[in-house]
């Protein structure tokens, strides 16, 4: 156990901190929802130039080109979560597609897509889930058959976040209908302006269309748009699902939330007394503080395992389940601290707190608990892969 950082890493931390303190005017407003606003793109460009985004992605593909240094990545995550300024763009294109292409894409695919995605100019959506293929994703039915040099796609995807803004979709389609269900799937890159694609927004409980349904009718895509070998799409997708599950349990984000709630409990009052004076709310706060630190240290432990080249056991499988739940509980506490005021949403009376973001988080986090592998699927994975318990036997076919 050694919690000190080397002089190199401490210098790096100082540098990041100084940059964040002096760059308030350059960063986009957190309420800026335009994916390609000039300020968002220029901020992303600046972050990449400084090595604070796309840090380890080679320069030839538009990244910063640093050699991997987990501790520097750690320092970056810590400092950005401490700061009110946003980090680099974190969409599914950058966090899921780019690592997949770098690992499994052809040179032409890398050249064409990686740099444009990193810069924020090319926005991606993920076409995995279907109405009848959720937890059992490999049962998906959206079909692509070969016609000359093209695939012709027919079917439907659902829960497609950002589809209405996206330029491209990375998509799982069934190319070999007679193969076993995990073997007949291919991973396709589809331009969203291809004729035959229809995007229908799906209104959600947060009051926004954070998801869409996407319909495909005779959508033609060149066969060169497959990533990896045809029929190997399940393996390709699993590489990215791992990235997503790691992404959804960011312990530094939980710490940031915790600190915000401490401030809130000191400043919000009831009958003239700070809510921090309420012993029951305080007890919940400290309960969550212990969990926030436990998850932070757990994250450090996993980082160290990676640095040492050790393979994590069950501890590597619990982050999504525990991290999402913790964030949800933090949002729940914030709502209870604010009481009636916390109910305000889309409100311009002047009483609204934090733009209504806690209500949004409380609901949206439930979406995260369900999405990316439900909590129940996570528990199956923990029990089966982590604890060595057997899979549910398949019912006999009638």
């Amino acid at each position: 156990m050694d919690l000190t950082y080397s002089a190199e890493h401490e210098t790096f931390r100082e540098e990041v901190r100084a940059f964040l303190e002096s760059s308030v005017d350059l960063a986009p407003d957190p309420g800026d929802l335009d994916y390609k606003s000039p300020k968002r793109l220029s901020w992303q460009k600046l972050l990449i130039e400084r090595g604070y985004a796309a840090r380890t992605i080679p320069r030839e593909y538009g990244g910063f080109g640093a050699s991997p240094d987990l501790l520097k990545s750690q320092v970056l995550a810590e400092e950005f979560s401490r700061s009110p300024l946003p980090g680099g763009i974190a969409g599914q294109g950058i966090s899921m597609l780019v690592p997949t292409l770098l690992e499994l894409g052809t040179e032409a695919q890398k050249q064409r897509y990686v740099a444009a995605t990193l810069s924020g100019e090319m926005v991606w959506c993920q076409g995995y889930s279907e109405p009848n293929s959720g937890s059992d994703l490999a049962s998906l039915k959206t079909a692509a058959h070969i016609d000359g040099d093209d695939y012709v796609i027919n079917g439907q995807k659902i829960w497609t976040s950002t589809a209405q803004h996206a330029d491209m979709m990375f998509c799982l389609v069934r190319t070999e209908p007679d193969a076993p269900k995990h073997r007949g799937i291919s991973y396709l890159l589809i331009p969203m302006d291809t004729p035959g694609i229809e995007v229908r927004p799906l209104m959600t409980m947060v009051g926004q269309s954070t998801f869409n349904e996407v319909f495909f009718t005779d959508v033609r895509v060149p066969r060169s748009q497959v990533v990896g070998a045809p029929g190997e799409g399940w393996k390709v997708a699993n590489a990215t699902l791992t990235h997503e599950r790691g992404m959804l349990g960011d312990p530094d984000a939980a710490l940031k939330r915790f600190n915000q709630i401490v401030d809130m409990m000191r400043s919000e009052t009831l009958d003239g007394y700070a809510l921090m004076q309420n012993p029951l709310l305080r007890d919940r706060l400290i309960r969550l503080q212990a969990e926030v630190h436990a998850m932070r240290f757990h994250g450090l432990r996993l980082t160290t395992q990676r640095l040492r080249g050790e393979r994590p056991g069950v501890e590597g499988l619990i982050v999504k389940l525990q991290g999402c739940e913790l964030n949800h509980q933090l949002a729940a506490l914030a709502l209870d601290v604010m009481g009636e005021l916390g109910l305000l949403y889309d409100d311009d009376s002047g009483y609204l707190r934090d733009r209504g973001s806690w209500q949004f988080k409380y609901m949206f986090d439930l979406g995260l608990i369900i999405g990316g592998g439900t909590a129940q699927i996570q528990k199956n994975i923990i029990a089966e892969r982590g604890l060595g318990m057997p899979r549910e036997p398949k019912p006999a076919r009638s």
Partner: protein
Amino acid sequence: MDFGLTEEQTMLQDSVRRFLTDRCPLDVVRAVVAGDDAALRGLEDGLAELGIGPVLVPESAGGLGLGLLDAALVQQTLGEAVCPAPFTGQALLATLVIQTAASAAQADEWLPALVRGEMRCAIAATELAGAREAAAIYAPADCLDGKALFALDAEHATHVLVADVARRWYLVDLAAGGVRLNRLQTIDVTRSTVEVLLDKAPATPLVGARNHHAAGQQVLSAGRVLLAADSFGAASAMLAKAVDYAQSREQFGRVIASFQAVKHLCAEMAARLEPCRALLWYAAYAGQQQQDDAELMALLAKSHIDEVARFVARTATEVHGGMGFTDLLGLHYWFKRIGANRQLLGGPERLREAAAQLQGFAA
């Protein structure tokens, strides 16, 4: 930055675990708690041969010279085995009290005596965390009056280390007059607790601490980390037993481990337990390095592990079905040990309130 155990620490823990698997199986635990003194002596002698008793004692005094993290790793394995030897108080906390509160001359005399096993100290520290039944120790002049409750590890003890109301520590020789120990029989029969009654008992004050409050706090925090380590170990063992049992027990023509209802209980236990390990390591390390956040982290670690361990204790018992409720499997020894650790040196609600006060959250 390296957030993990060293190879030496892993080896230390593995060697204690191997010893306990071999020498402290359930039938030995049952023998000791039934009053078989030879079985307890055998276990103590084995631990002494293993050389881990003086884990915290400096090398100059014949110990291993290791830190609180190492001690917590040892304690974790004792919890895994519900080891009934009086180790936490006599080996670990006694060393910590002497190190933090005794003068150099006292430590030079007492630590080697601890290592040799000539001096064995029970620890009366409960009242540092809060007194019930008006328990309190007063020091009128060169002697002690009063009572302390739930003093730890009095078996085979020659002395008791007690703290007075001003948090000053004293060494009391049990062979001298004026001191009486009454056994307090708790649910956890794997460790004994006693009431210490002092009536003008001769006592040697520990005269090394510049700040009695800080010294007392350091011992209290270390004690909380060790109890958390013990519960973490006991809970880990219960989870492993639950998974094993579910793999062998068959109902409806299949092992119950293949039912999602059972798998999810086990997954929840693992998911809540694993982050406790990192929290425990950090809290122990913070105490060892005397970091500014040591007291807070001890409070957070014990309060959180108390809660998770209680959840694991009941859930693992449920996974065992009716067998979990019987004495036949002995699962209840772990269940009760976790229950006792939860209350000793402060239960979770008290600890969370202390953590709030420490951070200036509570008035």
